[in-house]
């Protein structure tokens, strides 16, 4: 492959490490498909769900991946909306991540269905009252929008590469200028779309009167905020990793800057919104000052602590100190912790809905999964859930699909054309293709090294 033709593609070809990565993803996807086939034959009985705890890992991860995707797009399109070029070098990567995540989120619904072949009902007999129909619509719209937006951001570079993916678009200065205007309008659509996507997903839960704390107007704003947290954190994690392993350049000065922003997002989410949600309940339910304080500050489940300590206290501690957040490792750890925290926030949300029954008199509800014989105890008065190996295998397989999409995007989509410096809009076509641009920022070009 000539140097000119892979300009802007950060992985010009897969080296041994790249191939090993693809092989790993392939194995995970095949294992996931196998597990799903097994689940289709045996029924959802092979999951940890039952009639009391009727949504499990698939929905928890659906919520997480919706968040990861909405955040990525907001981060990459908001600067465009304000005509800032500072984050241009991250825009295409952000949209690529959004695309990967929204595909994973959409696919996660399929194994959750008892009769997935009837999913066409969304199109043939939808009920417009159902928040799930709203979500289906906006996930679809959002996924398609991401494809279009990514193409808009990269089509001139596709043209420059001579790729058929340019679909006849020419690489001209005037054309690039026009695309910049289109990108502004696309960003103007992207942001409300992303806000809508996350709010609607929140409303799937927030409209439900029957599941305890789900019925809470704060859920949708919480979802927006956790999209900002997890989306930005994922962009940082992926950006740092891709910088490490490919020719992609994550401008170094952006790391502490985005780290600071992530710290603010985490603080708004885990400190402010959680306080706003819990304080009124704690105040109303208790009388003494200290019992109010206790009810306000002290959570009652492990998921709450995993969320607020790992996903809140740890990242804030790492990102609040300027000398710490200038270290890439600290920002990386904080971002991973923030994503883990957001995962457990979703787990926490599901558990708050299913743990207690509204009417919990004995013997309770028939679980639908525990029949072993005539003397079996099929009853439960509280919800409990542990995901099974089958669920984990299916979920990991679907996450691998997302990773594959991002990996192939890095290989075939010019997400970082030229040696684009973050603040300059200059496109010097001669410097891009010659030297390895990664060397300056401390990242190593693993693929090239592997091939040499």
């Amino acid at each position, binding site marked *: 492959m000539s140097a000119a033709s892979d300009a802007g593609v950060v992985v010009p070809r897969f080296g041994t490490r790249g191939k090993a990565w693809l092989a790993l993803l392939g194995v995970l996807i095949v294992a996931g498909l196998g597990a799903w086939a097994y689940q289709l034959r045996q*029924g959802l009985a092979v999951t940890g769900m039952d*009639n009391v705890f009727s949504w499990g890992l698939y929905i928890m991860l659906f919520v997480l991946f919706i968040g990861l995707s909405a955040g990525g797009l907001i981060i990459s399109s908001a600067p465009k909306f304000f005509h800032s070029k500072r984050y241009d070098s991250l825009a295409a990567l952000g949209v690529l991540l959004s695309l990967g995540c929204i595909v994973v989120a959409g696919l996660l619904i399929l194994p959750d269905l008892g009769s997935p072949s009837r999913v066409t009902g969304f199109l043939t007999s939808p009920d417009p009252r159902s928040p799930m129909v709203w979500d289906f619509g906006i996930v679809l719209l959002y996924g398609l929008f991401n494809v279009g937006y990514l193409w808009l951001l990269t089509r001139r570079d596709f043209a420059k590469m001579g790729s058929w993916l340019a679909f006849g678009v020419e690489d001209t200065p005037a054309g690039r200028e026009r695309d910049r205007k289109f990108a502004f309008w696309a960003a103007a659509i992207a942001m409300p779309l992303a806000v809508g996507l996350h709010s609607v997903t929140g409303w799937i839960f927030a409209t439900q*009167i029957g599941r305890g704390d789900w019925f809470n107007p704060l859920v949708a704003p919480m979802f927006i905020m956790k999209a900002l947290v997890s989306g930005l954190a994922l962009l940082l994690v992926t950006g740092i990793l891709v910088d490490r392993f490919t020719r992609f350049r994550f401008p170094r000065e952006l790391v502490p800057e985005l780290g600071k922003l992530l710290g603010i997002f985490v603080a708004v989410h885990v400190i402010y919104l959680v306080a706003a949600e819990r304080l009124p309940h704690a105040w109303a339910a208790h009388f003494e000052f200290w019992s109010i304080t206790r009810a306000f500050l002290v959570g009652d489940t492990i998921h709450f602590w995993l969320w607020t300590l790992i996903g809140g206290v740890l990242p804030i501690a790492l990102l609040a100190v300027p000398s710490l957040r200038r270290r890439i490792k600290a920002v990386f750890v904080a971002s991973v912790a923030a994503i883990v925290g957001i995962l457990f926030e979703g787990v926490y949300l599901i558990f708050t809905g299913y743990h207690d029954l509204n*009417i919990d008199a004995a013997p309770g509800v028939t679980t639908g999964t525990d029949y072993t014989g005539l003397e079996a105890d099929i009853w439960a008065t509280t919800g409990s859930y542990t995901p099974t190996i089958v669920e984990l295998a299916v979920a990991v397989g679907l996450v691998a699909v997302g990773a594959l999409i991002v990996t192939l995007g890095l290989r075939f989509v010019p997400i970082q054309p030229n040696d684009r410096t973050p603040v300059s809009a200059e496109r010097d076509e001669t410097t891009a293709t010659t030297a390895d641009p990664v060397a300056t920022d401390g990242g190593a070009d693993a693929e090239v090294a592997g091939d040499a």
Partner: protein
Amino acid sequence: MTDYGMVIDLERCIGCNACAVSCSQENNVSLDKQWNRILTEGGDAMDTPEGSYPENGRDGTLSMNHLPLACQHCDNAPCVKVCPVNATYKRDDGIVEIDYDKCMGCRYCMSACPYNARVFNFDEPKTLPTDGTGNVEERKQGVVEKCTFCSHRVEEDLDPACTVACPADARIFGDLDDEESTASRYVEKYETEQLLDELETDPNTYYIRGEMSPGRTRSGNELEGTEKKAVGNPNGVATDGGDGQ
């Protein structure tokens, strides 16, 4: 219009589970689930009271009651509103029913129902005998199911199996839109509650608490607007345990 509903007199209910058994029989319900459950309001276990045993004559505080619970057939049914594919719907006669050929098994309705009235076929249903019981076709793996007020019986002008099976006349089924129906007269005369009424689901199931109704055979003509319909089609099979008098 018709608006089918049920009145359950909690003071008459003796917790015998006959309605639950006849429901499972009639509707071919798998052994790992029940559409109709009899809960014990009292101790932590089924059929146990709360409070303390009278040690010194009259100082005991034991109390126990039973609460039969199935689909409440709400007017503002959350399960109907959440179903993305219109598989669960409110019929014109007030019955909330599921189209098992449309249900894709997303279980959103199970999250929506505050009464946990819905059950899901996590795997193939298990019945004894294995080819099923009663008069309703078996539901497949991967769909949600629940009480239908025995719509197949109601359509043949019969009361639901649970109503017929109740030995204490604690269940009265009828048309709530018909002021002359027995069910309407009970709702009119007795103090009734709708479960979790603060959630505004507006169930078509009413529970009598406090004052016991006299029971249908003793209530005389005053409350007997429409008679109990135990057996209809003389050529049909009596599956409800009724003797077809």
